[in-house]
């Protein structure tokens, strides 16, 4: 079983007073929906704050941090030769949907294209909970066909645009290439070693789909501590509990900005201090390699979709000695 030990704030380079003031900060700013604040420094749990009736094992929805989870699954596939390369074009993986006849640009879209959200498909983002294009995709009879029909307005690999088509496609590609779902892969190669307790992901008749497309409201849920382990995995160059789960090379590639500040489903900090995964409603997973620091924020989602990043920028980072 993989357990993280606990440690003190001062001895691990964090100002105690500032960190303890997090509670006041949350109260003063009326972050009523806040549920978890977890700080891991130098491989030790140095601070925890949990909202009403919550603790470090309470599970919360990840929302878009699922993307970073999918990225990890790809890393696992590469490491275990379930997928040979990121340069495989989708025309080879799902030829019945993606081919020259459908669109000449399809052959330029590789797994790497999808990981960097540079597929070039036409997309207009709507306000968070009300995304009309996602709705349209969701309601199509065969969503892979709908994506294959989607007009491509930018040459693939040139422009970054955050959109759901790329991650849906990524899931489908992974399943087609490996015969396994994201859950299967992680459950086999990561969860046991990381001591992560996770329920199976939502399944659809065709494949595991990034939750958005299902009619079900629930999405992947992890406790604060388990989510933190994902951060630790990358911090530790792909190793957890002495096991190389993903390669160090993959960690480097995934956490480097490719086009704009985005890696492989990871948002890269503009100042180069680290990277983060973000999920609607305030879910955040931050990694600061130079400081051996991993921070998890979790909150109850709401239509206003707030972010609580000031806890990190205004308090935690300031507390670094």
């Amino acid at each position, binding site marked *: 079983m993989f357990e993280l030990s606990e440690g003190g704030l001062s001895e691990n380079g964090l100002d105690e007073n500032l960190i303890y003031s997090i509670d006041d900060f949350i109260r003063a700013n009326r972050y009523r929906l806040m549920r978890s604040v977890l700080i891991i420094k130098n491989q030790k749990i140095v601070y925890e704050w949990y909202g009403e009736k919550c603790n470090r094992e309470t599970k919360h929805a990840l929302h878009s941090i699922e993307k970073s989870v999918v990225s990890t699954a790809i890393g696992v596939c590469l490491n275990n030769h379930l997928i040979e390369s990121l340069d495989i074009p989708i025309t080879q993986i799902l030829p019945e949907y993606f081919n020259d006849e459908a669109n000449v640009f399809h052959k330029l879209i590789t797994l790497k294209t999808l990981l960097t959200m540079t597929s070039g498909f036409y997309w207009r983002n709507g306000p968070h909970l009300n995304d009309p294009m996602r*709705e349209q995709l969701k309601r199509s*009879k065969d969503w892979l066909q709908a994506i294959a029909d989607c007009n491509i307005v930018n*040459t693939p690999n040139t422009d970054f645009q955050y959109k759901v088509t790329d991650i849906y496609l990524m899931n489908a590609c992974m399943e087609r290439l490996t015969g396994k779902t994201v859950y299967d892969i992680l459950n086999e190669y990561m969860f046991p070693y990381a001591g992560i307790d996770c329920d199976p992901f939502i399944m659809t008749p065709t494949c595991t789909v990034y939750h958005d497309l299902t009619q079900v409201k629930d999405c992947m849920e992890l406790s604060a501590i388990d989510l933190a382990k994902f951060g630790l995995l990358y911090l530790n160059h792909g190793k957890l509990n002495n096991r190389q789960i993903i390669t160090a090379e993959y960690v480097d590639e995934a956490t480097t900005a490719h086009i704009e500040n985005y890696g492989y489903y990871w948002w890269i900090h503009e100042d180069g201090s680290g990277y983060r995964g973000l999920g609607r409603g305030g879910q955040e997973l931050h990694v600061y390699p130079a400081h051996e620091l991993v921070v998890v924020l979790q909150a109850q989602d709401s239509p206003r979709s707030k972010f609580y990043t000031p806890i990190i920028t205004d308090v935690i980072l300031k507390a670094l000695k």
Partner: protein
Amino acid sequence: MGNHIKAYGVKKHNLKNIDVSIPKGKLTAITGVSGSGKSSFAFDVLYEEGKRKYLSITESQFSLETSNDFERIEGLSPTIGVEQRIIRQSNPLSTVGTKTKLINALASLFSVSGVTDPEYDDGKPLSVDMFQKNSPNGMCLHCLGTGEKKVFDEEKIFEDRNAKLNALLLGFLDRGKSQKKYRAFLEQNGLFPSQTLGELTDEQLQKLKYGDRKETFPGVMPLIMNASKYNLISSRQMEIITGEYGKKIICPRCHGVGLNQIASHTRLQDRTFAELSNMSLNELDKFLLNAEDDKNKKIVKAIRLRIQYLVMLGLGHLSMSRPIPTLSGGELQRLCISAFIMSDFDSLTFIFDEPSIGLHEREKEKLIEVLKNIVSAGNTVIVVEHDESIISVADYIVELGPGAGTEGGELIFQGEYKDFLNCEDSVTAKYLKDRKYFIENYKHQTKNAPASHHDERLRICGARIHNLKNLSLSIPLYKMVGFAGVSGSGKSSLIAHTLVPKLKMLIRNRIVQDEDEDIYDYPRELDDVQIQGTEYINKCYVINQQPIGRAKTSNIATYTGVFDVIRKLFAETEDAKDLGFDMSFFSLNAEGGCPTCGGQGFLVYHVGFGDMNMICDECHGTGYIEEVLDVKYHHKNIAEVLEMTVKEACGFFGDVPKIVQILRLLDKVGMGYIQLGQKTTTISGGEAQRIKLAKELGKSRNKDNIYILDEPTVGLSPKDSEHLIYLLREICNAGNTVIVTEHDIDVLSCCDYLFELGPKGGEEGGYLIAEGTPESLKENANSVIGGYLK
């Protein structure tokens, strides 16, 4: 206060410091020959001032100085107007449905009462935006709502391994705007333009086809597939490339409808959204009557009310999907009027620009009813009009004139209709007092015309496009032949969409049409139509009302070609030689043009409602830099020459045959009043047609030709129409055939032979209800216009 709008000291354009008084709460008609100053007064003065006054109190940051075009104007209320030449500039994607907001209402109706085919139904409710082509939820993601796609044959483009790199894409790549980036790309990759495709490595070929993120050359395929984004290939070149390597296809996903899958497969009473958008409004109205139920009562009632206003204004034959640019000037004007009457305002001043254009006599009666209703609701309505039927029912008349340009701009008459008829000075009154004045003049003028002894005919068999009911007719040649019928009865379908394309097919290089115009595609349905008698035709001239010269600096002088001669004259003056100016300096869009406004003479400000055009401070509206204006030819600089009317210029350039020849023709077609520098984007459809006619007349000298004109007298005063008819008669007498589609009763009465289509528009039309000489139609019980002919 008072109950009159009073304008004092008006001197805009050619208006000669006049005082005009118009009663409020009444219908006033402003008339006069073309170029007399009617529109200047109605729009450039009254309408603009009403707008300016309103803006200066509502838009606080926009401080507008009062105009010095007049001393003062009292009694104005906020003005709402629709000037023909302004609305021509509307968004090309606009349709009747979007402009009237009917498309939104229909989308609403579908979201409430639509039934989705079981295959596509996922149990979730339908929303309004699912039926809107430009909404992310509604658009077909394949074509992005346009209904069509361009596909290119990548293999074919790169097929020939021996093709040189500089010859790719028919050589367009290594030319013009794209050349720089293409050459840079070749150099960066160690390639030469003279190398062949076969010499490229796979990697280089891939880069050539799709570009490389690190370089600025986007790649051949993205370049042509997203041409407008990269803007390296001109649209003309793209046309050619598409012709060679690609094709435009109807979107295979939405089949041209532009909507997403669910919306495309949702029906109301078994009809899809697309089908309803393509129905005529008349048919739609009937259809909706059957579709009404408790849930959608309110929406259906609102839609039907809107449609009824449109039908009232003679627009029932239009469909919601009809693109705005294809509407005639009159149709567009009436479309806007329908919005005004629905607004139900009172105490406003409405100013309309010849709303009766294109209306059949019967339809005019309905229009008059609408105008009177707007007045009785408590508004002032001012119409600029030539039409006798409208003028004769107006409460008040104002006539400007007597002539055009500098020969106009005076107040000839203002007062009530009965006094107008007796006004000796009025040119228009003569035509109103005696309805036969026009035809009598005509008969007198043409009484010595040589009798024609021709029997040849042009036969059309089996015309059935649109609503035409398998028509066959025999058009007598060497005569003036008129085609009449209500809007939507099938006149354009027969002439413009059947006869012309068919002739194009048969006598290809003997058809003369404006370059820009290739709007009449050849649909497969014409295969069965037969035309006989083309052996009698030498050349066929098609002259219609499509706008001329789209460039912002294009004007009458440039379009007709006189400007090149004028510029040469200026370049050869001593002044110009001293300053080292050649011809190009006198062009508005080259070095001599004002850099601030790009040679246009004005700058556009986007304000609350409508755009304001403000004279460019730099060049004071001339469009030229100061130095160019120092050059004088016979004491006038180039800007002053452009301000001259055609008539004035005829006198000024009297000793230059090349110029006078063209200008005289322009005068002959009734365009003597137009200024040389008038922008072609501001001229009406009727004016454009007459200018094209003048251009063609300037070229041809032989006989046995056919001239096909579309409502040539539209926008002309009775006097100007007379002159045009004489010209057409002359053309006819010289041994040619003239075919006109017309609504103007006077013109139709002057024709040698008439064909009448009808009896109504849309599905109830398309029949040939009468044919014969005007005399015989008068006796013909089946003819609708027979009763109106003079």
